[in-house]
């Protein structure tokens, strides 16, 4: 091998070696902040995230506020515990996952598809550090959006909550003690008797009509268990109220703080999972569109089906679906995930799974997809 005199090598200009630990797998704060800037300036996806996580709940609650203000007798209050659970489990949970996954898929694939990946690789920076820098940057965006949307829901549901509690159809004042509820029941015996669950025959001279219409009929009618006086009816209603007091205390006008805190953390967990899985999948596939479609199918199609259907010999595989696992970590006050309709029996529709297994499944998904995405980024031709 020869090099001629005409191209004789020169002494290289003296230079200090950069002391920036470029081979370290840890991303620098500057890498995270510039990645945050890159994602935040994606106008389309940022508008989508904002509309879904903040706009939709705000619009829904805003319309309810206006309707209630315009016709309070026809339209109930905008907020309350029921609205809270519906929005959290029905909207923020599902759409939070999808928008987080979309942002994750974007963060995981755009450097490659837009030609920046090779520029970044040529810097000599560890590819693992380049991958990991996207996690805090993306989570900062998606979690803040989830937090804003959730805060709006909490505020409206608390401050625009109904003042009268709907207790199995009976319009009962909220926050009564047991003795106060019993006393109130004595003076509203027909409403209590017609609405609360009765373990036994209906008193004979009570006629409970449709839509809560109540009348006391002299001479009875219906399955008569004996004709009662008004005092006897009051006593019966008081016993009924005392027997159902525990259920009464479980009903809230506004969502309790513990439920809001738990729900908020649960939504943040779901969004975090969505982002990390999307990031790994986007990096693995190297393109966004297919990755986003797969994530939507997982959340909207596959998980609801798998949550309800018991497939013989595949129960454990079904339990390994991350949506099932997160559903099992749902706070107790929420029972409507995957449209199960709420109510005390809603949870029984879910495929049974212990909390420990649910946590293991979630950790496995997060770690597994992160490892896959990072591995692909470290080994991919740029």
């Amino acid at each position: 091998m020869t090099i001629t005199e005409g191209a004789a090598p020169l002494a290289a200009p003296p230079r200090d070696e950069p002391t920036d630990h470029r081979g370290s797998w840890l991303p620098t704060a500057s890498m995270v902040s510039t990645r945050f800037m890159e994602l935040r300036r994606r106008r389309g996806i940022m508008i989508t995230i904002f509309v879904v996580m903040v706009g939709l709940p705000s619009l829904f609650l805003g319309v309810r506020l206006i309707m209630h203000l315009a016709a309070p007798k026809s339209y109930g209050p905008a907020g309350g515990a029921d609205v809270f659970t519906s929005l959290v489990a029905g909207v923020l949970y599902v759409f939070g996952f999808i928008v987080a996954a979309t942002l994750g898929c974007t963060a995981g694939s755009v450097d490659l598809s837009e030609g920046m990946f090779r520029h970044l690789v040529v810097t000599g920076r560890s590819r693992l550090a380049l991958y990991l820098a996207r996690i805090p940057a993306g989570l900062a965006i998606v979690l803040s959006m989830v937090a804003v949307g959730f805060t709006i829901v909490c505020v409206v549901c608390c401050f625009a909550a109904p003042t009268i509690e709907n207790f199995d159809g009976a319009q009962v004042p909220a926050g009564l003690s047991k003795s106060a509820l019993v006393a109130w029941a004595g003076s509203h015996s027909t409403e209590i008797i017609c609405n609360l669950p009765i373990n036994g025959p209906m008193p004979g001279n009570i006629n409970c009509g449709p839509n809560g219409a109540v009348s006391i009929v002299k001479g009875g009618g219906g399955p008569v268990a004996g004709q009662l006086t008004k005092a006897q009816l009051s006593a019966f209603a008081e016993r009924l109220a005392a027997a159902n007091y525990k259920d009464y205390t479980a009903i809230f006008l506004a969502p309790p703080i513990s439920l809001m805190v738990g729900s908020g953390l649960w939504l943040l967990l779901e969004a975090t999972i969505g982002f990390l899985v999307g990031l790994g999948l986007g990096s693995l596939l190297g393109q966004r569109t297919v990755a986003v479609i797969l994530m939507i199918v997982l959340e909207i199609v596959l998980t609801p089906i798998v949550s309800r259907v018991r497939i013989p010999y595949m129960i454990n595989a079904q339990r390994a679906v991350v949506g099932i696992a997160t559903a099992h970590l749902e706070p107790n006050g929420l029972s409507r995930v995957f449209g199960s309709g709420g109510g005390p029996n809603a949870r029984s529709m879910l495929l049974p799974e212990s909390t420990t297994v649910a946590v293991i499944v979630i950790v496995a998904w997060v770690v597994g997809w992160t490892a896959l995405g990072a591995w692909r980024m470290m080994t991919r031709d740029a």
Partner: protein
Amino acid sequence: MTIATRTADDTARGPDGPWAVETHGLVKRFGDNIAVNGVELLVPRGCAFGYLGPNGAGKTTLIRMLLGLTRADAGTMALLGHPVPHDRARALARVGAIVDEPRFHGHLSGRQNLQILAAAREPAAMQRINPSLERVGILHRADDKVTKYSMGMRQRLGVAACLIGDPQLLILDEPMNGLDPAGMREMRDMILSLVAEGRTVVLSSHLLDEVERTCDAVAIVDHGHVIRQGSISELLQGAAVTLEVDCSDPSRAAALLGGTTLGARTEVAHNGLSVALPAGTSRDEIAEVNRRLVEGGVAVYRLQANQASLEEWFLQVTTRLGDPE
């Protein structure tokens, strides 16, 4: 002509060694196709080095291997004395490169794209963004989105991306693509100024005229092999010489020269005679051509010796894509 030979001592000197780029037996296969086939390449520090070859010769693949963008199947390589990929982080710390068409995040401005790249380098790189943009002449458009940039501006932004790392070695793959004549001249001047600062520039291109004007040395690659490398002046000395002869009887002149041992190939043109002499022809041999013609009774009005250009020499030594070797 003195020949400098790579020695074991050069290799052992590592980062203090004389070579900016050093490869030995480098191989890259894509299935049955061997894109890079045992490339031996030595690029001295502080020069502009052209890496030339026809389309599909393996130029970009070699650059991608050097930069760690794809893995080599065999062989060793080093950048600035640091072995790659073993010591990749240190090797690339002072390397800037454009590979293929420079592409960036279109929704960000040129400055923001450079901020992302500077963040992956040392902290001082952030301070070099404005000077780099100014040097490539797009500082006034630095805050425009890249989608609004022309191809030439993206090329300039790519060079700016190289410069923020204060590189000792720049590897530029077809940097003239998309540039207008004025832009090509500016790029050429900039490359020369970078070399004047003591940096090494490796230029991959098939614009041979630009390479000839810019580079001190070249390597020619064809079908994955480096078939020639050295300084341009030395390589061209090994090329054929063409004599343009304006004379009274071109046909007779051709017959006269055909009977000599000069090894000349003649071609009669409408305005004279073209005589191709083999590589290594001396001035005395050119004078001998003139003497033979005059002694043969042919009046010579003008005789001009033309050294082959880099382009002509390149076509002489490379096989055309698709042709048998």
